[in-house]
């Protein structure tokens, strides 16, 4: 992006993104200069938001509550910039300056209150200014919001003061390099250096990893109220042991990234500033981020470094694409939740599908690199994850590629991803790994269909009648079985236990599996049998589950993948490609008062229509 002027009566330049950079970002060739371009644009975007917000608030003094005009905070920030532009830019680029400005702008323009009274959110600009002034070591005095006794100084830490009020103000004073926060009841003198905890003070910890000359320095922010996705959240302080675990994990994860994706390792530190640590979720690695908090990701503590590395790359990809989306439209507004994606259990709208494709494109590249290098730390797992994500991401990309809601830029971006991801599909991997990855993909897709697609009731009635009449073959199906739009309301719940067990079984012996499986929420004996390769037992157990609970989606699809593994085609084909139809006919037969058919018999019978 180079400054350039429009033929306009005023002489502003606009941020640009060359096609060269655009194409490089699309194909995953992300380098530091590309990320800096995105950051530069983000800086201007935030300045515009600040200007718009202050313009609006100044017109409506009632929005400031007990605070002085936002111009006081503005002037303090201007003093900071005059003293230290680096400090000013640090606060401006801070991820939660972005999330706060977006959130508060929405509130002000919708004239609604948020998690706190609107004046608390508006007053957060004072907290940003105070943090910047402390960093710049200015002499100053300013009021900041106090939420349940907590006053955030973004990027620095959280002050706790006694108060009976849920929403109040505290005073921050800086004088000759000493800083104090008070509220008339008590005062907290900030320690020096500021990165130590002290009475009434929780500093925002850092986690730094250096390897091969590459350094990644992140905040582990567990206190900033604007670190969440949806609105302000209270602090959730990590204990010191947990911080230590995070730091170790980060060091090991960073080593993997630097070793296996060295080019990306140059770019990540430019775009990733802050992790919001969340409690670990057994057997899973959830993470999340917002385009407004450029540079931040919420990450549940993973169990191992490879999982954290994959998550960091995943979220970095989101951050990059979020930056691109602030520069150009890749799709028309289309909120319809109409796409299947393997990384979620619910139908997704186009914008989130594109984000997922780009994020898992990065994840695929990571596992591919580990698999090719034979990274000993991850064994067979890298090959499996590569096989799984290359196939699943490619499948979704295929569904999105020709969608009418993509703009021409969006299609170009998708094609850039495809140019890399396509050739990876045919790279050799062990046959059993590919088979397992495909089975897991088929399982999840069938699980989505059975819960989110509703079969044609006419077809269900015809099939029921034919079954009850004892016909050897089902009637010819006139309507397509796959054409209906998904509904976001699921018909039944979904369990990820089988997928978790399959992943666990990749590098865990059978004895350990037998010990662990019962601790996995939702896991059944049938799932354990499938994950440990006892396919006939799995078929028996899934059939038994369906006799007890004929609605359970995971039992129908589990039966499907188990049958497929034996080489059976008719029943497994129906159960994996049209499980919603099989279950609906089963329900209909039961509702007629006739004896319940055997699930495998019914599925095989319906499968004849598709073959």
């Amino acid at each position, binding site marked *: *992006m180079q*400054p350039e*002027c*429009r033929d*306009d009566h*005023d002489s*502003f*330049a*606009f*941020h*640009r993104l*060359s096609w060269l*950079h655009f194409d490089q970002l699309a194909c995953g060739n992300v380098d530091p200069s590309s990320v800096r371009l995105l950051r530069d*644009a983000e*800086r*201007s*975007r935030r*300045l*515009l*938001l600040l*200007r*718009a917000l202050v*313009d609006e608030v100044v017109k409506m003094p009632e929005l400031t509550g007990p605070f002085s005009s936002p*111009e006081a905070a*503005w*002037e303090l*920030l*201007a003093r900071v*910039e*005059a003293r230290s532009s680096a400090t*000013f830019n640090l606060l401006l680029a801070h991820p939660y300056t972005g999330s706060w400005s*977006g959130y508060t*702008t*929405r509130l002000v*323009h*919708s004239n609604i209150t948020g998690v706190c009274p609107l004046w608390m959110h508006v007053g957060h600009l004072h907290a940003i200014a105070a943090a910047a002034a402390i960093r710049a070591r200015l002499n100053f005095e300013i009021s900041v919001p106090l939420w349940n006794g907590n006053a955030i100084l973004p990027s620095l830490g959280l002050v706790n003061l006694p108060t009976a009020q849920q929403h109040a103000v505290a005073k921050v004073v800086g004088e000759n390099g000493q800083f104090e926060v008070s509220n008339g009841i008590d005062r907290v003198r900030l320690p020096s250096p500021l990165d130590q905890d002290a009475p009434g003070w929780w500093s925002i910890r850092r986690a730094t990893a250096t390897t091969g000359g590459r350094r990644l320095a992140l905040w582990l922010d567990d206190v900033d109220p604007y670190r969440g996705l949806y609105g302000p959240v209270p602090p959730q302080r990590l204990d010191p042991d947990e911080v230590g675990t995070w730091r170790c994990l980060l060091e090991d994860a960073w080593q993997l990234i630097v070793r296996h994706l060295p080019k990306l390792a140059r770019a990540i530190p430019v775009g990733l500033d802050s992790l919001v640590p969340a409690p670990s*979720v057994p057997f*899973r690695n*959830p*993470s*999340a*981020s*917002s*385009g*407004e908090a450029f540079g931040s990701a919420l990450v549940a503590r993973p169990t191992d470094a490879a999982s954290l590395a994959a998550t960091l790359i*995943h979220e970095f990809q*989101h951050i990059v694409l979020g930056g691109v*989306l*602030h*520069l*150009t439209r890749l799709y028309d507004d289309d*909120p319809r939740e109409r796409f299947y994606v393997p*990384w*979620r*259990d*619910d139908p997704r709208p186009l914008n989130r599908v594109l984000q*997922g494709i780009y*994020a898992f494109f990065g994840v695929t590249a990571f596992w591919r690199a580990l698999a090719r290098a034979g990274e000993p730390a991850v064994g067979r797992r890298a090959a499996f994850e590569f096989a799984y994500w290359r196939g699943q991401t490619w499948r979704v990309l295929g569904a999105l590629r020709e969608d009418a809601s993509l703009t021409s830029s969006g299609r170009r971006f998708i094609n850039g991803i495809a140019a890399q991801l396509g050739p990876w599909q045919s790279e050799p991997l062990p046959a059993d790994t590919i088979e397992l990855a495909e089975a897991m993909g088929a399982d999840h897709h069938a699980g989505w269909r059975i819960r989110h697609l509703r079969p044609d009731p006419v077809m269900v009635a015809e099939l029921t009648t034919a079954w009850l009449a004892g016909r050897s073959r089902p009637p010819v199906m006139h309507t397509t079985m796959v054409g209906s739009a998904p509904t976001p309301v*699921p018909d039944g719940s979904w369990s*990820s236990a089988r997928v978790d067990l399959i992943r666990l079984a990749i590098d865990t012996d059978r004895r350990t599996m037998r010990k662990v499986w019962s601790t996995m929420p939702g896991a059944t004996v049938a799932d354990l049998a499938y994950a440990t390769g006892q396919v006939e037992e799995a078929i028996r157990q899934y059939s038994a589950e369906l006799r007890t609970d004929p609605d359970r989606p995971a039992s129908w699809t589990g039966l499907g993948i188990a049958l497929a593994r034996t080489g059976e085609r008719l029943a497994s084909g129906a159960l994996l490609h049209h499980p919603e139809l099989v279950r609906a006919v089963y329900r209909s037969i039961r509702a007629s008062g006739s004896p319940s058919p055997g699930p495998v018999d019914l599925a095989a019978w319906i499968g004849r229509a598709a073959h």
Partner: protein
Amino acid sequence: MTTFSTDPDPGIESELIDLSTVPFALLRDLDGATLHGALRHVVERTGQVRITSRSSGSSGGERID
């Protein structure tokens, strides 16, 4: 002021005006149709951020744009 680009790859022009050379102290004094268009753009974009309910499933991460 008008300039003409000779860049062979002009690429994508965003709706974000480049404020990299504008001191913060002067930002509130800026005016003009282009500025106000850019202000409107960023404010409108914040309104397009879709906050939907989280997935009920346990698989879900989330991404808000």
